[in-house]
């Protein structure tokens, strides 16, 4: 029994540890005073300030646009590549998988400075494009990583079977392969979206010319106490929580609908 209480306390403490800063941020974004320790009353003033601050609004806009674009591009590119790799010979596959692992294994700061030097050396002006390219670059490996196992579990003859039945190669991919790897593609897209949405380190090195995302915004503003950051943070927490809820609830709803149809 004693043991039980210990585990409960331990779990309780870790949950508090994980969520205290998040809850704290949300609460103090509604604080009427500047204080970060005393809650002196409910107010939306920090949100008003945030909405009036065009830099902050721009950063929210860029973050969302980049995340959506990077997700779409890297999901498509990653899936296409994974399918190509699954039909490639061992050496090409092995080498590509190794290279693919580099951005995942490298510390972000190394990836960041590498890209910074690349863009500068090629005289690409830093801004929206470099940010987007970099995000696509670090998202594709995650898509490939989540699609590959699904492809591996397919019947090796499945593409041949589709073409045997009259599909052109493109039709075979769309009608037979893609439906069977959808879960992998979605997982890859989800990881890409959150990776892009939350990225700070790489973005910090490759962006410029006033194009900032939320993370960079917080980092540069954090030198002084500024409760608007809490408001901005709460917006991020809100967006991510919504995305997570939709993704976790949609399959349940679909499943229930299917069951109903069966009945």
């Amino acid at each position: 029994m004693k043991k039980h209480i210990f585990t409960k306390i331990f779990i309780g403490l870790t949950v508090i540890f994980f969520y205290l800063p998040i809850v704290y941020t949300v609460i103090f974004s509604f604080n009427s005073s500047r204080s970060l320790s005393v809650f002196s009353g409910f107010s939306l003033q920090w949100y008003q300030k945030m909405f009036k601050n065009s830099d902050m609004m721009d950063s929210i806009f860029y973050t969302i646009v980049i995340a959506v674009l990077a997700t779409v591009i890297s999901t498509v590119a990653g899936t296409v590549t994974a399918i190509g790799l699954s039909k490639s010979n061992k050496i090409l596959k092995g080498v590509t998988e190794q290279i693919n692992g580099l951005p995942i294994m490298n510390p972000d700061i190394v990836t960041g400075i590498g890209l910074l030097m690349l863009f500068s050396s090629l005289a690409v002006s830093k801004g929206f494009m470099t940010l987007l390219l970099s995000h696509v670059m670090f998202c594709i490996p995650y898509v490939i990583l989540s699609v590959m196992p699904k492809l591996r579990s397919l019947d090796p003859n499945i593409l041949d079977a589709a073409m045997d039945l009259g599909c052109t190669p493109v039709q075979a991919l769309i009608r037979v392969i893609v439906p069977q790897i959808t879960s992998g593609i979605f997982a890859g897209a989800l990881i890409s979206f959150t990776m892009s949405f939350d990225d700070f380190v790489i973005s910090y090195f490759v962006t410029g010319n006033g194009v900032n995302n939320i993370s960079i915004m917080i980092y540069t503003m954090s030198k002084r106490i500024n409760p608007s950051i809490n408001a901005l943070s709460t917006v991020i927490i809100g967006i991510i929580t919504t995305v997570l809820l939709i993704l976790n609830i949609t399959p349940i709803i679909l499943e229930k609908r299917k069951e109903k149809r069966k009945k």
Partner: protein
Amino acid sequence: MKKLIQFKNIVKEFDSQIVLKGINLDIYENEFVTLLGPSGCGKTTILRILGGFLEPNEGEVLFDGVDIAGIPPYKREINTVFQKYALFPHLNVYDNVAFGLKIKKEPKDIIEQKVMRMLRLVGLEEYKKRRVTEMSGGQQQRVAIARALVNEPKVLLLDEPLGALDLKLRKEMQRELKRIQQEVGITFIYVTHDQEEALTMSDKIVVMKNGEIQQTGTPTDIYNEPVNRYVADFIGESNIIEGIMQEDRRVVFEDKVFDCVDSGFEKNEEVEVVIRPEDIDIVPAKDGKLTGTVRSVIFKGVHYETIVETKTGTRITVEMTVSDPKPVQNISADESMSANDFYIDISDIPELTKGDIIARADAQAWKTSTEELVSITKVDYEVKAEKGSYPVTFSTASGTAVAIHMIVADENKVENGNEVIYAVNIYKTIDDIKESIVLDTDLKTWANAQAWTADGETGIAITGVDYDFEQENIATGTYPITFSTRGYEYKIDTTEKYEIGDRVGLDFEPDDLHIMSREG
């Protein structure tokens, strides 16, 4: 019948390994053709070339007289039933079968009609809404066949389609496939390594080996007239005997002349004679064309597989003298030593070494307390290349010694036609016999038993070791041991049960003998 497919000198390489070495094959309309051979013989490669999934390196494939090189699989009037079926797991039974028609954008009502007709043909109309992943192997198999046939191909390719099914289901599906083929009336090309499957279903069998066609023909042709040993072995059980073709319709084997129905061989050409086990009858010994002794009888369900030996191999009998000596003890040096007398051929004397003597005499010395082996440092002997008995003394460094006799005798051998067998008499202790783990092999080694062809070129295996004692209960004394080589054996299917050891005669008709050229 019309030629539908012609393979012309097809060569295929993978990574500079040749898997098809010039295949020439014609396939006709409405034929059930089976490509038969072990895995890796190239049969699946032929199928994949025909399906359009592989391009040959050389040669051409004509379909209805037109070269189909470069035509992609989706434009060929050919459909395939894949190994493990390759059904689409995200679609149900109906949608799997309808897949090809939907791709061709046929009207919905036509699709419905055709799919339901196919599902009826394979007996799955009740299951159309079922997920394919929830179906048994046999049912998935039927879905795969329906999915291919619904497209009304001119040819259906089947790549080991029954491989994943259990025996009973496989038999059932064999009949089913044959029925379906007759009902739809198109060409089936079937790949398998199972000869029985090939024999029951096919109109034509193509036997393959290492990327080459060995023989093409009807099941009866292939079974009755195999062109070589490989085909005969692969298709059914057979007795293959070496013989000589004396002249047309006359073959010699087992030193007897037999009538046969084959001709066209050269005079005195060395050939192989195939006799199927069911073509031989067992008759009383006096009536048989060959006589022999029943060696084994195995019940095979419907019949007995009886093995009759017509000619025993060459045999030689030697004497084994078994003693129960106590090892010599040297108490002061804490040593024990043992050795036994042995026979040796005169011809071995010139090359005799001390090591040979120690080995033949089984001389050993050891520490009495620890059983640790002690080396034998001295072997004293004098010997001449003449028959007789010569003393030998073995001794160790600390002076323990044993004296024995080495008996020089004439070479003990038996010649029998083309074979010679050698062996020598042996002396052994009771412990040697009792402690032997593989007595037959040990006896061969001890007696130095060997058999050769008369010209001394080729060794012959000694397969028989006969003796009349029980290893566990061996006592001192002298025992005869007979070594023998294999004789001629015939596998015969009989309905009657014969006893092992019966003398019987073997009878067969001239047309039961099938003559083939020797390979290689």
